[in-house]
């Protein structure tokens, strides 16, 4: 019983951390272009230097 007093808040806290992480990612627009993000990983970083870095 005493372990539960620690474990349950810890479990809830970690869950809430994940949830707030997701909500933050959602708000900062990381889900706006899923197709583009999947393709952008293939583009060489040095070729994209100094362009399209906004957002």
């Amino acid at each position: 019983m005493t372990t539960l007093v620690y474990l349950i808040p810890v479990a809830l806290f970690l869950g809430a951390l994940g949830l707030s992480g997701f909500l933050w990612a959602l708000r900062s627009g990381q889900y706006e272009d899923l197709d583009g993000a999947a393709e952008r990983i293939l583009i060489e970083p040095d070729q994209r230097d100094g362009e399209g870095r906004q957002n």
Partner: protein
Amino acid sequence: MSCCAPGAEMALEMAASAPPSSEEIKLASRSLGGDMHQTDLSVPTAHCGACIQAIETALCKVENIESARVNLSTKRVSIRWHGDSVPPFFAVLGRLGYQAHLFDTEIDEKDRTLSELIRAVAVAGFAAGNIMLLSVSVWSGAEGATRDLFHWLSALIAIPALAFAGRIFFRSAANALRHGRMNMDVPIAVGISLAYAMSLYETIDHGEHAYFDASVSLLFFLLIGRTLDHVMRERARTAVNGLSRLASRGSLVLREDGTREYLPVAELVPGLRLLIVAGERIPVDGDIVSGNSDLDCSIVSGETEPKTVSAGAHVQAGTLNLTGPLTMQATAAAKDSFLAEMVRLMEAAEGGRSRYRRIADRVSALYAPVVHLAAFVTFLGWMAASGDWHRAMTIAIAVLIITCPCALGLAVPIVQIVAARRLFEAGVMVKDGSAMERLAGIDTAVFDKTGTLTLGRPKLVNASSIDPTMLAIAADMAAHSRHPFSRAIASYAGYCGQPSVGSVTEHPGFGIEAVTQGNTWRLGRRGWAGWKARTGGEGKPGGYGGTVLSKNGNIVACFAFEDALRQDAKAAICQLKDAGLSVDMLSGDTAKACSEVAKSLGIASFAPALLPSGKVEWIEALTRAGHKVLMVGDGFNDTPALRAAHVSMAPATAADIGRQAADFVFLRESLLAVPLAMDVSRRAGRLIRQNIAIAIAYNAFAVPIAVLGHVTPLIAAIAMSASSLIVIGNAMRLDATAKAAPEAPLARRRTDVIEAARP
């Protein structure tokens, strides 16, 4: 670009549309403060990593462009630029082979509903996960104080989840009840709130069973279904809105004192003098004051032949000015124009469609009362049998939860999103799920001719009988004009490497004149070009064409044109007939042009020279006779008919308003999109019915067990999840069968276009 290679097809389309003027771009862009501006363009053909890179790299090299970012999901580019003059991004994109369009920034508002739904899913998922965890401990034998602690924790976690995520259902249910209607959200709202209230009572009472887990996980599953449904509609809607708009955005106004000013369409009033250069669309109805030109009316009336206009002629909004500059006097404001009349006709024709109710709604209208009645009868029965109101209530709630339309809530949207995805990959966009349901039920297909069965783009048919040297000269001259006939001839340019002609002048309404080495060449109307050939009989190798090439007044070649049929038109019609549909053709074009097309496609029934209202009447007559009609059309004149039909489809090249009115929009040239959409819709309809049958069978099995009082929360949770998983699995079968369908049309189309361009 190797994976996209839009070059060949784009080259043809690029010629067809002029980029908007820089005033128009300025009107459409947002000011970011200072002299920074942001312009959003739609680039429908961007679809891979190489496209992103090509577009961004090229645009960022242009002077004054600060940054460019491609969004591949919505196929848009947002460009930030500074300075007074608009950087030439249309030209840059055109050179890369991407056709770009402006679109309204008002449409580009963030989708609030979607982010609300996703947040609700996240919160419900979080709560459901945690409560499940605690519930499992209870199920596996927690007792006494431990169980009460777990129940209290569950209750605490469930409160914010129900308040935040459940809001969506409570709102909709309250709205439905207030209007005396019943929808799927009513049993959901009643079920989850009753379950919560009862569980809370149990917890306070140190009871054994609580239903917090069922209440919240139900919400979670239902929200997933709701979100999928929304994503599908929204995606198609943005894609449709993102395509080129054909109504013009503004016009150059000539003031009394000689100054010129660019005004948005909404500010144009009757009496203003407008300057329309070649390549612009007429913004409002009006009369020509001066100038000669040819107008392309195909999108308005369905006529394929360009109309020659001069001072005094009345012109309609939406027609495209092809060859010469015009000064016109507006006779109507934008809201009173032909376009507005179409909107009125459309609203009048709306009736046929609004009566349609989605399968899910029809089922839930039956389902909700049955479920509530079953729960209520259970309660009464147990009350009568045992007299224990607490026990009776617990069992009644178990009935409510186990019958909750979880599988039903997922069944329909998940099939529709899989089907819409499949169609999207094949270049067909779906407005909403009910469109697919409606398409599955049609028995008659009605096609418009110009722009739908045909491309609305004339093709030279007697090229083989024309002297190649003459053809090359004509092609060279034609390259200087925007007239559809010229463009058809110009596609033969470079055919046999002739030297190019010298000075070229265009005579709007007549043709093109060029002078080389003392010879006067004219390409255009027979009477004007062949001014020495009065009899009209000379030099006619191929026959009857009204367009000729003359050298010093003597006709040396005749050109005959035919509107090119849309690709695969015949195959598409055959497939529709094989599927048991009757096929009609309606057109605003002449009887002669119609009968030729109808004959070559094997369409027995057609009606030429129809006004927009005539098309609507035709469709309404069919509807009254008990037919369910699919209307396929483009153009302003088809719009009311698109609305009047049971379900409608338009090509991406259709007028803006036509695309808005249609339920389906197909992006590729091939008409096979029509039978494909029907096939996928029919299969999706079958799967939806199967899923509903599964949900009903599950209930038939589960409800008696619940009514008899044998359902523990564990069984309810397992049964509910199992039914949802079965329904999802069944929906995925559509994707599996659809994969077998050919990807070929795209590849074939590309080679065909290249061949068509280089005969």
